[in-house]
């Protein structure tokens, strides 16, 4: 069985956790001019949509470039679907798609011509490339503008054309580097919807690099946070949220000090976060109904009760404060 068939089969299976990880980082380090950019990255990334987060200059784009073989690692290596990024770079490039961060296109070319050229360079025969170019442009919403020169495209349209060229050859892994950069809210929504559609199709894994937490939150299941070229956090977003479900935010009216003392007596951790607001961490055995009992006992009204989950922003900020973590 050929490599591409194996990858396609693997990508379409429901639980990829049983197979080679999408990306396997083995002590990957990259140095430019003696300056370390990525330092000893370790871990197995298996998510269908992986968010690559980090402040500007954290090494997100360098990591993508290194995985694509644009930069050679100074030490360590990485594998994509089991293929080594140093020795099998060409093979890897045959099943990945890449949407660069910067404005990238071929001037004086219509969108359909451009996307067709890119498909042919990926190995598609001319007829199939032309057919797929049309399909890809319709898919991203540029169907009506596909015969226009790329020079005349707006920024949002250029971003969509970049996405079209990244998916035209039907890759199993798509690297999207800041796909919503410079987009207005409707264009951003369209881009996010497309990314989610590709993810939900189950035919391709996605690595989305962004410094916009909302983009990652809306598209990705797993996140990898880089800080100063090191891996700060790698986690499953949903699991991370679930693990923090017992954070409760209460809005109360009445004697909040006595209520707080009562919470302490129940063995709960609490914090008065503002006027009439109390944050409670339920400990083992304590239920929400106990809080209502407590409130009635102290004649306190609970006006609002909501589960407070750690948002991606909390996770991100924690990672920035804590520094270096691992998997």
């Amino acid at each position, binding site marked *: 069985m050929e490599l591409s068939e194996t990858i396609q089969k693997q990508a379409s299976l429901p639980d990829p956790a049983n197979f080679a990880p999408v990306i396997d980082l083995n002590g990957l380090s990259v140095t430019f001019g003696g300056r370390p950019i990525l330092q000893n990255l370790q871990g197995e990334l298996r998510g269908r949509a992986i968010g690559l987060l980090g402040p500007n200059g954290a090494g997100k784009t360098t990591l993508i470039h290194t995985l694509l073989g644009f930069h050679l690692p100074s030490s360590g290596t990485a594998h994509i679907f089991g293929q080594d990024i140093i020795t099998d770079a060409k093979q890897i490039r045959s099943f990945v798609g890449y949407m660069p961060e910067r404005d990238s296109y071929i001037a004086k070319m219509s969108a359909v011509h451009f996307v067709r050229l890119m498909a042919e360079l990926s*190995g598609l025969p001319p007829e199939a490339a032309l057919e797929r170019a049309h399909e890809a442009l319709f898919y991203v919403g540029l169907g009506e503008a596909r015969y226009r020169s790329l020079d005349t495209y707006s920024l949002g349209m250029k971003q969509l054309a970049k996405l079209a060229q990244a998916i035209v050859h039907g890759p199993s892994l798509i690297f999207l580097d800041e796909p919503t950069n410079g987009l207005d809210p409707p264009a951003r929504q369209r881009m996010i919807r497309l990314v989610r559609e590709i993810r939900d199709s189950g035919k391709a894994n996605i690595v989305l690099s962004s410094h916009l937490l909302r983009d990652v939150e809306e598209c990705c299941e797993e996140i990898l946070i880089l800080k100063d070229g090191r891996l700060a956090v790698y986690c499953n977003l949903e699991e991370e949220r679930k693990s923090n479900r017992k954070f409760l935010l209460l809005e109360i009216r009445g004697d909040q000090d006595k209520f707080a003392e009562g919470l302490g007596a129940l063995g709960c951790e609490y914090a008065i976060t503002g006027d009439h607001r109390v944050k409670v961490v339920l400990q083992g055995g304590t239920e929400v109904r106990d809080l209502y009992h407590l409130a009635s006992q102290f004649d306190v009204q609970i006006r609002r009760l909501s589960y407070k989950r750690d948002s991606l922003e909390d996770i991100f900020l924690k990672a920035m404060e804590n520094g270096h973590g691992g998997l």
Partner: protein
Amino acid sequence: MAVYEHTYKQYLGKLTPEWSRFLVIPRHAFQDVFKSKLFTAFFVICFLPLLVEAILIYLHHNVSALAILRVNVRELIPIDASFFQFWVNFQAWPAYFVMLLVGPPLVSRDLRNNALPLYLCRPFSRTEYVLGKMSVLLILLSAITWVPQLLLFLFQSYLEGATWFIENLHLASAIFISSVVWILLLALLSQAVSALVKWRVIASAGLLGIFFIPWVFGEVVNQMFLTRWGSIISLGALMRNVTSGLFGTFAQASAQITQFDGRVGREVVVNEMPLWAAWLALFVVCAICLALLSRKVKAYEVVR
């Protein structure tokens, strides 16, 4: 991802052989280049000297045509090494102008619009990229230089007979090698210059300068120091020497100059630079171009 399905789907069809993918670039480039009617007209005009050459060869062997024109065959230029060398040198000019029109935007346009990552994130190497871009010029220039020249050589052989063909087979290799060296030089220079400056107009100006400024400077050196070594920086002169060498018409002592020292005049024989020096100089120029391309043709330039 079908147009009407609007779903993402993978491509499961056949792929083209890897070795042939660099040819995608010239195929698409030709579509772009021949969109211009002006260029197409110019390219057609480039074949006119070859037509004249063909007519001259034909006249040599057509007694009735000579009779109609009232021309004696002895009055015509003989069809020998010098004849083919002249036309090879002549066709070098149209080739040069085609290179000036087509070459500069090939790489510079991609660099200016950050298109290189789009090429290189595919199963497509930097070597294939350079080869693909060079193929645009190699194919175009071959079509107006050695391919028709060799066909004319075969035409002459057909008219003259098998003996002439066997005796002059070295001319065929001279036509081929000298044209290919010139084409390679032009292709490499245009790629390297356009990769270096990124702007088409400046790249075109640079390519004009590379050929003409060293030629003028070299001639000044030659005149001042009564030597021919000044031509070592002139690409045109180097190519002329190399072509002469290949056609077997190279003469070491190329000129006699009368030098006046006060009232007394004396004859000075000026020797051409040796052939090996011309070949070496061309090799060095090509090596510099390749080094430049290797440095510039990258997905991303790392700013240290």
